[in-house]
């Protein structure tokens, strides 16, 4: 705001020469903060005899704004580093602890592969070494990985990522800066997905490397198995993306602390239980199309090439259903975020 000379209101009672009685000022100073005077006393006995109207001129900020990616990187970094150290987004000790436990538990097959390499025990390697089924199992195995590990990690991460911002009013801190809502949500999405990638994809890669190192695999083996690894990696990506989009959609819809996490878990495990129930009772697999986990498992089985366990319909149905679920979740997310009121709720 630039200084402008006060506009003269003309001579007389509003003019600069009008006598200063102090009345107006006293009213301004006391009248608004005190309340226990008799209200009739605060009635002005004569009109204000002085006044200035300042012309309001707003001058746009001419400085150089950092590029968009740099601002977004700051948000992403803030969320990611929060997992490892203080001073960044607080994820909560239990969440971080759980991620660590799941990370180590997910490495169990890598550890056993290393062990089999060290001991030269073929039977251990047969069970745990890199194979089509084990690569599938590392990412998409139902028990324990998709019951106890990955969905819970996702549930804990998404539980608060948007809803807590809304609850505490910290989303206002983001939106008072030159950051679009899309970027805000996008970075939240990527950071949650990346943390899950540490648990799912990094452990998968370590598992694969453990096999190469402990058994001294050569190029021929790598060329043979790399497509399988890639397929497993892709399934893992699909898994993370789906859990994240459903979870964030739930997080954007609710403001409770518990709702998004439980909601994600209820969707993943609840639909699975329903589908198992119906297929056991009536030998109909149709409800598997409603279960995100089963759709991913079906697609994963196809691209990794393991024995399919769903045989009443083609895998493309599962893929289509998966796309539809993600589309619905992302639509909900974007719709909610774009209409989100930036207030403390």
């Amino acid at each position: 705001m630039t200084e402008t000379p006060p506009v003269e209101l003309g001579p007389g009672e509003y003019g600069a020469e009008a006598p200063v009685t102090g009345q107006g000022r006293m009213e301004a100073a006391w009248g608004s903060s005190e309340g226990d005077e008799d209200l009739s006393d605060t009635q002005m006995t004569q009109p204000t005899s002085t006044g200035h109207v300042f012309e309001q001129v707003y001058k746009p900020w001419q400085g150089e704004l950092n590029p968009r990616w740099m601002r977004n990187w700051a948000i992403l970094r803030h969320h990611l580093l929060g997992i490892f150290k203080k001073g960044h987004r607080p994820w909560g000790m239990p969440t971080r602890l759980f991620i660590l436990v799941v990370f180590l538990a997910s490495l169990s097959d890598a550890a056993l592969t290393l062990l089999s390499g060290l001991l030269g025990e073929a039977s251990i390697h047969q069970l745990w070494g890199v194979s089509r089924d084990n690569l599938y199992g590392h990412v998409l195995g139902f028990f324990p990985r998709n019951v106890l590990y990955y969905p819970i990690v996702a549930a804990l991460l998404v539980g608060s990522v948007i809803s807590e911002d809304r609850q505490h009013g910290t989303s206002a801190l983001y939106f008072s800066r030159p950051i679009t809502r899309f970027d805000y949500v996008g970075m939240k999405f990527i950071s949650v997905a990346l943390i899950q990638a540490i648990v799912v994809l990094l452990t998968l890669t370590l598992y694969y490397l453990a096999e190469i190192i402990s058994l001294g695999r050569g190029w021929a083996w790598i060329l043979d198995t790399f497509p399988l690894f890639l397929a497993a990696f892709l399934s893992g990506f699909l898994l993370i993306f789906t859990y994240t989009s459903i979870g964030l959609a739930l997080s954007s819809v609710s403001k409770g602390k518990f709702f998004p996490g439980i909601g994600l878990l209820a969707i993943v495990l609840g639909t699975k239980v329903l589908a198992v129930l119906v297929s056991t009772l009536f030998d109909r697999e149709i409800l598997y199309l409603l279960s995100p986990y089963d759709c991913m498992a079906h697609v994963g089985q196809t691209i990794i090439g393991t024995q399919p366990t769903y045989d009443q319909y083609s895998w493309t149905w599962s893929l289509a259903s998966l796309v539809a679920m993600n589309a619905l979740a992302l639509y909900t997310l974007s719709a909610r975020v774009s209409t989100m009121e930036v207030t403390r709720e």
Partner: protein
Amino acid sequence: MQTKPNTIYRALDRKAAALTEFTMRQYRTKVSTWVVLGVGLVAISLVMLIYIDVMATGFESVDNDGDSFDYDNDGYPNGQELKLGTDPYMADSNPGLLDPPVEPEPASNYIDEDGFDITLEGTSNLQSTGFDDDGDCYNYDGTSSRKDANNNNIECDVLLVQNRYTGEWEVVYDLNVDEDPDDAAYAAEATHMAFVLGIGKMGFVLLLGLFLPLFLATGLIRDEMSAGTMHFMLAKPIARTEVFLYRILGYLGIVWPYFIVLGVIFATISGFMGPSEGLFRFQDLGVWLAIVFATMMASFVYGMLFCTMGVMWRYGIVLAIPFAAWELGMCLVSMGAPDAAILRFSVIGWALMIVDSAAVMVWPNMDMFLLQGTTFEDGGPGNFLSIIESSALALDFFYSKPGTGSSGLASSVIATVVLLIQGAFLWFIGGAIFKGKEIE
């Protein structure tokens, strides 16, 4: 003058009513309550819809032994020729040439002509039972040893052998005995019972009984604590343990009527849809009663548990979610191995025992029924898994005997008592933790 003691417990009932009523009103004003209840309804209604579709479509009976087929084109189905002793493979040997001549029967008479006749009698672990209704064993043109495939020196019977160690029965058929039962009737009956047990155990007790408390009870105390509104409640002469209990009562005031209404709807629909001689299957009502009761008990214990977890820790969900996954696993264990000791450490194991006990009491012939279906050998054309066997396997998956080994009534009482003790214990723990909490 003062006759009543100066304790805060004097006007307990009024406080209980007030706080319970308040909690229920609070639930009713939240959108999330209705979303959760609605989604729960939609989810299990999906299963119900598929059940209705399956029941309305019906099951197709199969001619398991192929004797409705007229091999020699003489107008008489093989079964009729076999029964009357003519050669089914020679056109010039047929019942029409008998004296007096016999009119050909429609082929459909020979689709389900040899039903299950096996029964368990007495305590012997080696029993001869069964009867060859259509005579294709008695009239079989072969040696006596071929008519007595199970080697018990009785032609055309079914031998039941009890395993000395496991106590399970094994069925050994003679050739062509009980080989062509009424598939459609069996499958409808088995599928119906499997549905009642399946939706009861996995739909009601597991999905609704576990997830509704997870959604509704976890924040029962914790949300008030973090919002600061707990100060209003705790500024009144009311013990925190009471607040805990009355909040739970309010939560039960929402979910229990929901379970009851849902149970009534499901029992009504399945009662009309299921196979029965009359219009309505009244015998299932006992099982439905047990299902609703088990769900109510489970939701009570889970509610106490999740509320306690919420009180214990700001991140109570971190405790609650793995526990929910554990209970899911225990549910599956209880289907396969209902007497596993590990089930004693779960909530759902006991809740499902209530359903199992009721099923044992309401369907006393279940053992024989399952034995018929699961050991049924498809003697018919093709080597497919018959609908009898597949429906029997589904029923076998969901049906299990109460794991305590005692009678139905005793097990259900034991399970109820255990659940009540669990709930009371959790109330005690939760109340104690809440009592020791400092509220900012």
